[in-house]
C-alpha cells in the first residue's frame, strides 16, 4: 500500500535521513523503532508532506505523493497523529474532531464518523464540550487518534503515541492501537516503547542515524540480541 523509496531529507544543511526505503502492505501494522534523534519523526513528517524530501519518493497505492503539499496528502488517504499529539488546546474535543474531518470527502460524513469515533472512545463523548487542553494525557491521545480517524484514512501514521504518559496509560494507548488494527486500519507506528510496539506490530524496521539498519517480522526483531540489548534494556 505505502512504498517509500530511497528517501532523503533534512533541515537546512543538516541531513537527517539517508536513502530510507520501506513498505507497508494493506491491513498491516508496521513499526519503526530507533533511538532518540534517529530520524523517526522526520520520516513521518516527510510521508505526511510536512517536510519535503530532498531525494527519493513515496507512493500510496501506486500514486506518487512526494510532490504534493500536506493538505493534499491527507485527501489522498494518509492521516498523521503527530508527535506530542498537537491538539488545538482551546478548541473543544468535538471541534478538534471537526478539524480532522475538514477534507471535503470526510465533511460529507461528519455526523456518522463522529458517532463512530465516540463509539470507539466513549470518554471523548463525555468530554466533547471541554477544551482539548484540559484533557488528561491519555484522553488527549484518544482525541488525537480520533481526530486522525475522522478522515477515514487508508493509512494511519502514529508518532510515539505512548510518549510522556504514565505506565498504566501507556498500556491503554497500546490497547487503543490494537482496537484500531481490529477496525481494519493500516498503521505505520513509531515508538520508543520497543517491546510493546513489537507486540502489536506485524513487521518492524530499525532506524539508526537516518538509515534502516534492520527489518523483519516483529517477533523476529523482538528476539534479536542487539535490539534486546540496545533498545529493550535486557
Amino acid at each position, binding site marked *: 500500500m505505502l512504498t517509500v523509496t530511497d528517501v532523503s531529507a533534512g533541515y537546512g544543511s543538516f541531513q537527517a535521513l539517508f536513502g530510507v526505503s520501506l513498505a507497508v502492505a494493506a491491513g498491516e501494522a508496521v513499526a519503526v523503532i530507533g533511538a532518540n534523534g534517529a530520524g523517526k519523526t522526520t520520516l513521518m513528517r516527510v510521508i*505526511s*508532506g*510536512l517536510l519535503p524530501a530532498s531525494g527519493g519518493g513515496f507512493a500510496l497505492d501506486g500514486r506518487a505523493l512526494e510532490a504534493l*503539499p*500536506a*493538505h493534499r*496528502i*491527507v*485527501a489522498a488517504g494518509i*492521516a*498523521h497523529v*503527530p508527535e506530542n499529539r*498537537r491538539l*488545538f*488546546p*482551546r*478548541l473543544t474535543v468535538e*471541534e478538534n474532531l*471537526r*478539524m*480532522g*474531518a*475538514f*477534507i471535503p470527502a*470526510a*465533511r460529507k460524513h461528519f455526523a456518522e464518523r463522529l458517532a463512530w469515533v465516540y463509539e470507539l472512545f466513549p470518554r471523548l463523548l463525555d468530554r466533547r464540550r471541554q477544551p482539548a487542553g484540559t484533557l488528561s494525557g491519555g484522553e488527549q491521545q484518544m482525541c488525537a487518534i480520533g*481526530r486522525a480517524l475522522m*478522515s477515514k484514512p487508508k493509512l494511519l501514521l502514529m508518532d510515539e503515541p505512548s510518549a510522556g504518559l504514565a505506565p498504566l496509560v501507556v498500556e491503554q494507548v497500546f490497547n487503543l492501537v490494537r482496537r484500531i488494527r481490529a477496525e481494519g486500519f493500516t498503521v505505520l507506528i513509531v515508538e520508543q516503547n520497543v517491546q510493546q510496539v513489537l507486540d502489536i506490530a506485524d513487521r518492524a524496521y530499525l532506524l539508526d542515524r537516518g538509515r534502516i539498519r534492520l527489518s523483519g517480522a516483529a517477533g523476529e526483531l523482538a528476539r534479536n540480541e542487539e535490539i534486546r540489548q540496545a533498545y529493550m534494556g535486557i
Partner: protein
Amino acid sequence: MDIYLLEAVMNGVLLGGVLALLALGLNLIFGVVDVVWIAYAELVMCGMYAEWWLTDSAAWPVLAASAAAIAFVALLGVLVHLLVIAPILGSAPINQLLATGGLLFFLQSAATLLFGTDFRNLGLRLPVIEFGDIFISLSRLIAFVAALLGAAALYLFLSRSFLGTAIRAVAQDREIMGLMGVDQRRIYLLTSAIGGGLAGLAACLLLLQYDVHPYIGLTFGPITFMICVLGGLGNMIGGFVAAFIISQIIAIAGYYVSIEASYVLAFVVFIALVLLRPQGILGK
C-alpha cells in the same frame, strides 16, 4: 442620574458597537495571520467612499450600495494580503506592520486623488427617537444593531462551520494545519476577506453618522488598535469587551470635558494599562 449623562452613556454604548466590529476584524487578522494591519481604518475609508460613490454618482439605492461596498472592501482585504503581506510573511513583524503603514499613505493619497479632500455624506436625514426623556439618533441605533448582528454572524460562522473552526485552529497551531487537510494560504485569504468585509460593514455604518474624507481613518484607526491591544491582541472576545469600555470612557469624559480631552484620557488609560498589564486586560 443626569439625563444628559445618561444620553452620553447610551451614545457610548452605540459607538461601542461599531468600534467592536472593527476590533473584531483587526483581531481576527492578527490572531490568524499574525500581522497588524495599520491601514485597517483606511480600508474602512475606502468602503465609505465606495458606498458614497455608488449612491451619489451611480445612483444606487443605499442598501445595494452597502452590500457592494462590503464586497469591495472584502476584495481589498484579499488584495492587501496577496500584494503586501504574503511576500513578507516570513520577515520581522515590525516590517509587516510598516508595509501596511505604506499602504496607509497610499490609500489616503489615492482617495485624495480620486475624490479630493471635500467631506462627503449620503445626505440621509434619519429622525431622532425619544425614549422617555432621552434622545437617540436612529442612525446610531441602526448602526449599533447592525454591528451586533455582524458580530453575531461572525461568531456563528467561527464556532459552527468547518472553515470557521479552521480559522480559529490556525491561530493555535499553524504548523499542523496541513495534517488536517487545510491549505493555510486559503485560510489566510479567507480571513483577510472576512476582515475586509467587517471593515466594509463598519464603513457603511459609519457613513450613516459621519462624513467621509481621505483622512477619516486617522480619527478612529488609533483608537481601534488601542482597543485590540487592551483586549489582548488576537483575543476577539477581549477586544469586543474593550470596545465598550473605551467607548464609555470617551462618551463620559466627552460629556464632562471635551471630545479631544476624552480621547486623550482614553489613550493615557491605554498606555498605563499596557505598561502595567502587557497581556491585555482580559489576558492571563
